[in-house]
C-alpha cells in the first residue's frame, strides 16, 4: 500500500487551488498541551443562538468537571457541560466569535478539577442520544452532530468521508490529534458508518504527512475504511472538493454533499464523539492551535471552553504586541476585535499576528491569477463588478452560490482587491435563501 502511494502520489481531484506556505513547522511537532483553568471561566450556556438550552445551575452552585450545566431543549440542540470543577459565581453573557453574545455561567475553578462520575451504559440505539447529551457538534457549519446524522440518514447517503485535511496554513489541531490518538478515530468512524448505514467509508488525510498516513493505514487494516491520502493543495479541506476528489461527484451550486449522497464529517466531530461514546466524556475542551508571529510558545493546546483569548495569550506568551487576532484559519477565519472572546467548542485555532496584511486596492490589472486558482472555476474579477447592481440573473446567482468562500482570490490578488469579501456580500444580497454549504466541515 505505501509503496503504491509513493509511486502514484496523492489524488488530484479539482482544477485550480494553490499550495500555500503552511507555517506549520512551529506547531506540528509539539504534542498537545493541556491548559489548566486557574482563572474564572465564562462558559457559554448554549453553543449557538439557534440551539436553545435550559440552564441547570444557579449562582453559588458547585459543579464538577463534566457535569451538565445546561440541558438541551428540542431536537436540534446539545447540552453544555462544566469544563472544570468549581463554583458558579455569576450568570452573565459572553462574546463568542461566531455567535456574538451568548448567556454564560462564570465558573471559578477550585483547582482540584474533580470529574463527575461517569455512566458507561452504552448501547448502539442510544448513540445519537448520547451525542446530543454530551454536546457533540459539527464545527462548520455549526450544527449538532446528531442533527447531521439525521439529515444524512434522511438523504440516504451512501458514502461517509471523514476529513482530517487541514490545508489552511498554521492549523495543526487535526494533525496532532491524529498523531496522538489515531486508533480511536477509526473505531468511532466505524461506529458512525454503522449508524448511517453507508456503503463506503473514506478517511481523508494529508498525503504529505507520510508517517501519519502509514500509521493510520496500519490501524485501518482489516476495517472497511479506505484511507485517502490527498494532496494538501488549498482548499482541499472544503467538503465539496473532498467529495469531488474522492467520489468524483460535483455538488450543485448552493448545495451540500448530502445532495450527492455523501456526508463529510470533520475529525473534530469524530474526536468529540469518540470521547462521548467510548469514555462518556462530554465536550468540555477544545483542541486549539495557537500560532502566529506574535506568539512565543506556538503550539496545539487543549483549552477548557470558556477561556478567554486574553487568558490564552497570557498562557502562551507573546513576543510582540498583537495587531490582528484571528479565530480560525488565516484564510477563512473571523477577525477578533475584543480579547474577552471565549474559546467555544467549535474553535480550531487562535492566530495572533503582530502585522496586518493591509490592502491598498487598485484597479484590476487582469493578471488572471484569481481565475486560474479558483477551485470552482469562477471569474472573481468579473463577479465583483456587479456589486453596485440591484439584481443578478440566474446564472450569476448560481455562480455566487458555488463560491466556497475559500479566500484564495483575495489571497493571490496583486491589486489587493477584496474579491472574496465582495463575493460573500453579493451572495448574501442576491441569494437570500441561505442553504449554502451545510453538511460537513
Amino acid at each position, binding site marked *: 500500500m505505501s509503496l503504491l502511494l509513493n509511486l502514484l502520489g496523492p489524488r488530484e481531484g*479539482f482544477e485550480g487551488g494553490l499550495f500555500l506556505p503552511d507555517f506549520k513547522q512551529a506547531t506540528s511537532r509539539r504534542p498537545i498541551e493541556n491548559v489548566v483553568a486557574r*482563572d474564572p471561566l465564562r462558559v457559554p450556556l448554549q453553543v449557538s443562538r439557534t440551539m436553545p438550552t435550559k440552564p441547570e445551575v444557579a449562582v453559588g452552585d458547585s459543579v464538577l468537571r463534566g457535569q451538565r450545566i445546561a440541558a438541551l431543549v428540542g431536537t436540534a440542540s446539545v447540552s453544555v457541560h462544566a469544563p472544570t470543577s468549581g463554583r458558579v459565581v455569576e450568570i452573565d453573557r459572553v462574546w463568542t466569535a461566531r455567535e456574538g453574545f451568548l448567556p454564560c455561567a462564570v465558573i471559578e475553578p477550585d483547582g482540584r478539577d474533580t470529574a463527575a462520575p461517569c455512566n458507561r451504559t452504552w448501547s448502539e440505539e442510544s448513540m445519537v442520544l448520547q451525542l446530543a447529551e454530551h454536546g457533540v457538534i459539527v464545527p462548520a457549519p455549526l450544527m449538532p452532530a446528531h442533527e447531521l446524522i439525521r439529515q444524512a440518514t434522511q438523504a440516504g447517503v451512501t458514502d461517509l468521508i471523514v476529513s482530517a485535511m487541514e490545508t489552511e496554513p498554521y492549523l495543526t489541531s487535526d494533525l496532532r490529534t491524529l498523531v496522538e490518538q489515531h486508533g480511536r478515530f477509526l473505531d468511532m468512524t466505524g461506529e458512525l458508518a454503522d449508524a448511517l448505514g453507508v456503503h463506503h467509508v473514506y478517511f481523508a488525510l494529508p498525503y504529505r504527512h507520510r508517517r501519519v498516513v502509514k500509521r493510520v493505514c496500519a490501524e485501518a487494516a482489516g476495517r472497511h475504511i479506505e484511507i485517502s491520502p490527498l494532496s494538501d493543495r488549498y482548499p482541499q479541506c472544503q467538503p*465539496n472538493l473532498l467529495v469531488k476528489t474522492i467520489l468524483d461527484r*460535483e*455538488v450543485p*451550486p448552493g*448545495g451540500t454533499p448530502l445532495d450527492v449522497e455523501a456526508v463529510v464529517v470533520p475529525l473534530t466531530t469524530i474526536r468529540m464523539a469518540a470521547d462521548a461514546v467510548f469514555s462518556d466524556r462530554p465536550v468540555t475542551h477544545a483542541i486549539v492551535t495557537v500560532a502566529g508571529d506574535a506568539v512565543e510558545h506556538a503550539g496545539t493546546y487543549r483549552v477548557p471552553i470558556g477561556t478567554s*483569548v*486574553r*487568558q490564552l*495569550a*497570557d498562557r502562551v506568551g*507573546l513576543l*510582540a*504586541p*498583537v*495587531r*490582528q*487576532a*484571528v479565530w480560525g484559519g*488565516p484564510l*477563512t*477565519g*473571523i*477577525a*477578533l*476585535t*475584543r*480579547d474577552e472572546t471565549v474559546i467555544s467548542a467549535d474553535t480550531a485555532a487562535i*492566530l495572533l499576528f503582530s502585522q*496586518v*496584511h493591509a490592502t*491598498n486596492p*487598485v*484597479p484590476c*490589472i*487582469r*493578471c*488572471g491569477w484569481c*481565475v*486560474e486558482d*479558483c*477551485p*470552482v*472555476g*469562477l*471569474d472573481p474579477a468579473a463577479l465583483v463588478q456587479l456589486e453596485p447592481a440591484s439584481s443578478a440573473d440566474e446564472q450569476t446567482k*448560481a*455562480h455566487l452560490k*458555488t463560491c466556497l468562500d475559500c*479566500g*484564495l482570490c483575495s*489571497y*493571490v*490578488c*496583486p*491589486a*489587493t482587491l477584496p474579491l*472574496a469579501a465582495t463575493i*460573500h456580500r453579493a451572495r448574501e444580497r442576491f441569494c437570500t435563501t441561505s442553504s449554502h454549504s451545510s453538511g460537513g466541515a
Partner: protein
Amino acid sequence: MKADARTIPGGWVALAAPHRLGGSTHLDILRSWTLAAGIVGLCGTVIFGASAAKVLLVAMLSAIATDCIVGYARARPVVGGLSHASLTGLLLGLTLPATVPWYIPAIGSLIAVVFGKIVFGGLGHFCWQPALVGRVVLQLLFLPTLSLSLHPTWPILAPGHLLVGRLDQPQRVEMAGYGGWFAQPHDANVQALAMERPVQTLRAFAQGRFRPDGGLAYEPLLREKLPPWQDSIFGLVPGGIGETCTLALIIAGLYLIYRGFLRWQMPVVMIAAAAVAAALLPVESGGNEGGYDWFPVFAVEQGRAVGVAYVLYHLTSGELMLGAFLIAGDMTTTPMRARGQALFAAGVGVLTIFMRLYGVVECECYWSILAMNTLVGVIDGRLRRRVFGMDEEP
C-alpha cells in the same frame, strides 16, 4: 486577572477574510518586469554603446515626466505611477535602434503614456500594450529615420570597442566575406561596423530577391548573407537595442517565469508557433524558376540540413525574442487564463512570420502583438472555465 502590559493593547484590526495575503502586489510585478527589461537594456548598452543608454534614459525620463504631469494636471495619483511609466519607457527604448536622435524616444514615450495608457483610463484599463502603441506611431511618424528599407545597413560596435565605442562612422562590411563579429580584427580606427539586419535579409529572401544559385538557395543565404549563429545568440548583429541579444532575453524571461509573473506558455508557445510557421510557409527564393518552395524546414543542400538553420535564424532575428519574453506577456493586454495566453501567443507567432514573409510593414512582431491584443476579449469569452457543479456553458 492582570494582563501583561505588552500582551494585547486595544485596537485589533478587523478585516474580512482572508487575513494573510500572498504578498505579490502590482508594484512587485512592475518592478520585476523593469528589472528584467533592465538586464536586456544593459546588454544592449554593452553592444551598442553610450548612445543606447541615452535612448533608454530619454525614453524612461520622458515617460515618467509625462505620467507625473498628467497626474498633476488631473490632481489624482496615477496608479502604479513611476513603476509603470518607467517600464513603458524602458520597453519602448528597447525596441528602438541606438542611432535615433534623442527626440524620437522622447516623443515615443509621450505617445505611449498618453495614447497608450491615459486615454484608456490608466493601469489595468488599456487594451493595447502602451509601449508598442508608442513604437508603431513612431514608425509611422519617423518613417525616413526608422525604416529598414531606407536604411539598409545599421551600425554595431566593432570588437575592442564594446560599451565605449561610437556608432557615428561605421565601416561598411559585406556579408559575403564576413566571418562573424568575433573574427573581425581589432582596429583602433574602426569603432563600428555597418551591415544589413538579418531580418531584412530573410524578408528579401522570402520575397524572391535572391535567385537560386545553381540549384542551391538556402546554402548561399546562410553562408553569404547572414552572420554566423553565435552572433545572433550574443546579439552582435544590428537591430533595436533590446532586440538582438537572445541570451539576455532568455535570462530575463526565465527570471520573470521564476517569479511567477510571466506564464511559460507565452514565450514557449509563441516561439514554437513562429518556428512551425517558418518551417512550413513557402518562400519564393527557395524554389526553382521563381516558384514557391513549401516546407523550407525539410530543405537539404549539399548534405546539410539547411532548412533547420533557416528556421532558427527566423527565431533569433528581428523582434520576435523581445516580443516573446518581455513585451507580449504584459498582463493587462493578454488573456486571463494560461490556455488563452497560449492561443494568443500562437496567433502572435504565426502572424509575425506571415507578415515577415509576405508583408510590407516592418516591426511585424509589434504589429501582430497589437493585432492579437485586439482579440483578447474574444479569446477570454471563448475560454471560460467550467463552473463546478454546473453544466457546460455555451
